[in-house]
């Protein structure tokens, strides 16, 4: 009976369509046109904001920075003057000859191994253990993720307090066992960068872990269950199943970690003000200082110089990492 009703309905609709095509072509055309216009307006409106944002905050800013890097400010005439590659010449000379620049460059480059070869593996291990539902897993999840939701100012202050030379509880314990660097943990050139790295690892694990945990929990249960039935150990499960299957997420985190080389400065500023004696500054820190002092042309030059180095470097690393791991589909 239902089958019959459906057939009748189809025939009825077919007749209406034929009627519309023969007798009301203009009506159909105008309706179609309206739909197309509506669709185009919708697409236009949806794209308007991101494209405008892209044009202003990416294209304009970067083009302006590039132009600024070929200029210098003339205080007498109150205008920017074109100086060709002079800013690049002096910046490269200072990078190679001044101790402060060399230190900043080394500090920046050290963030590459720290974020990618210490923070990232620790995040993968932590995410895996949470996935395996270790006792108090949910509590650990909150503890690990807490640094990512607390303001960096508060976080750096509490971290600094832990190692305060007079009141710091961690410092007191270390002092008891004879570990007490001259000038304090953030006042000694040998300890200040390791302390900043320690902070970045502590605060960075949580952020990575959330993304990794999400990627692991989306894996097909059957694969993991069948491996477990086959008696796979935790080490093999992590290295032979989990890591290959979440490789795209690891690649993304690796690329984000690599960009830290060129962008990190806030942690160094809040923990040690770039000191002692500029020993914890990074390239991005120096750019920030230059901007604050009004020296936009030198800041733009350093920025462009490291963009020329950074973009190919990051593209190469991305391709290299993607090639290492297989593209697992599930």
């Amino acid at each position, binding site marked *: 009976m239902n089958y019959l009703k459906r057939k009748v309905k189809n025939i009825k609709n077919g007749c209406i369509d034929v009627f519309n095509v023969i007798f009301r072509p203009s009506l159909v055309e105008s309706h179609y046109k309206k739909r197309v216009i509506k669709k185009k307006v919708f697409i236009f409106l949806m794209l308007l904001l991101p494209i405008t944002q892209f044009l202003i905050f990416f294209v304009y800013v970067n083009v302006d920075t590039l132009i600024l890097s070929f200029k210098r400010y003339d205080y007498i005439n109150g205008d920017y003057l074109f100086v060709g590659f002079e800013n690049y010449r002096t910046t490269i000379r200072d990078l190679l000859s001044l101790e402060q620049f060399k230190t900043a460059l080394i500090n920046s480059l050290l963030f590459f191994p720290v974020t990618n070869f210490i923070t990232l593996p620790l995040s993968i291990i932590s995410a895996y253990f949470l996935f395996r539902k270790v006792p108090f897993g949910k509590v650990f999840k909150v503890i690990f993720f807490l640094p990512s939701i607390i303001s960096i100012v508060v976080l750096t202050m509490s971290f600094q307090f832990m190692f305060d*030379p007079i009141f710091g509880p961690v410092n007191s314990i270390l002092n008891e066992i004879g570990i007490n660097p001259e*000038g304090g943990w953030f006042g000694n050139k040998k300890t200040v960068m390791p302390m900043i790295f320690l902070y970045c690892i502590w605060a960075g694990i949580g952020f990575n872990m959330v993304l990794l945990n999400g990627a692991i929990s989306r894996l097909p249960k059957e694969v993991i269950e069948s491996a477990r039935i086959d008696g796979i150990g935790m080490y093999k499960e992590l290295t032979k199943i989990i890591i290959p299957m979440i490789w795209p997420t690891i690649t993304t985190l690796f690329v984000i970690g690599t960009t830290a080389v060129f962008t990190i400065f806030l942690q160094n500023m809040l923990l040690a003000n770039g*000191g*002692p004696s500029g020993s914890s500054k990074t390239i991005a820190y120096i750019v920030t200082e230059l901007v604050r002092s009004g020296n936009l042309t030198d800041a733009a030059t350093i920025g462009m110089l490291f963009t020329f180095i950074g973009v190919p470097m990051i593209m190469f690393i991305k391709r290299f990492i993607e090639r290492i791991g297989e593209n697992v589909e599930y």
Partner: protein
Amino acid sequence: MKKYVKLFSSASFVFMILLTASCSPESSDKTRLRIAFAETGYGREWLEEIAVAYEKENPDVEIVLDGNPNMTANAGPKIENGRDLADIYFLLETNWQLWATKGYLEDLSDLYQMEVDNGKTVEEKLIDEVVDFGKINDKYYALPWNDGVTGIVYNAGMFEEKGWEVPETFDELIDLAEQIKDEGRGIKPFTWPGQYSAYWNFVVYGWWAQIEGIEGMREFFAFETPEVYKQQGKLKALEAFETLIGDQSNSVNGVNGLIHTQAQMQFANGLAAMIPNGIWIETETEAALRDDFRMKMMPLPTLDGAVEPNINNTMLGDFIVVPKGAAHKDIAKDFLKFMSTDEMLLLYTEKTGSPRPFEYDPTQIEGLSEFVQSCLDIWKNSTNFYIISKNPMYFANDLNTFPKSGAPYGDIYLGDTTAQQVWQGDYDYVVERWDEFKEKNGIED
């Protein structure tokens, strides 16, 4: 349903209009003068009271205050893009010359010629040495905000209790440091903020000026030749610092990692007897000080060979500007003129404990604290030294006192460099780049 949606939309629209109207700065009959200020060591009470006094004399003006410790950094982008501008900005030392030459600041030359009291103009009332502070390309764009007293602050109660004498010479200061370590039962002579080690500029610049004299310092900050970096005063001052603080036992352990508030807390808690600081320390640490805590500023101990033994390093640098795009520029100038009257200058000092660089006598104020009194005595009885440079190489930050690597105090404290190396290093750095800096800043021979 459509009816309700329309009704809701209309109601929301009317509400938004009313809300916007109520937030409009000109909603009342009064003209609103917006004042933005760096709310730091001097607090905000001074400005609140001056604002009340101004409103009393000008009932048609309402003053709105916007204080923020980070105002100096926040003001830059606003002044540059001309949006959401205050009418007056009180800011800490920064490159206002850049804003002035870019045309973002109002020309204040007419303010300098306005009569304040007793027929004196603002320019005539300003201390002679600072008149040109706000001048660039023959126009005045800034007005100096604070004058100052900086140097070594000591725990007066502790000194009296232990019977320690305030040193008059550098040698006596070294002897005192030994005495404190011997008799102080763990008290160290100094604490200081290693993360802001430029606090030692207050003392070192003072010693430098003692050796070179005011003329020598003017010559240095004119930067006419790289040979100014060979001044013996700079070397001797750094050597004095090296003798005093290069001996790590003279500082609390871990000072190199401290910020200014941590160092001030150590001083307030009696961990150290002295701290390099300025006249603002009392208001800045007010909340943390015990009622019975007593401190004073000591006249800077004199170095051997000083030509000007009685020096106060004012560290003048904080300034006041009116943006070109301000809504009420004339009222802003009138307010600044009002602030320059004797009555308001005295009120300013009474509330902040700090003088302003005008010709008046703040020591006549009654009820000042022992600390402020000690500072004002130094300010009144010393040769005040002001850092003012008209050289674009200085505004552009190509040249300064330590151009090679910034304040060298942390390195000297850690023994990573010597006074002689810093002095020679700065000279070599400047000589190598002199022509380049001149060309870069459009300076012709």
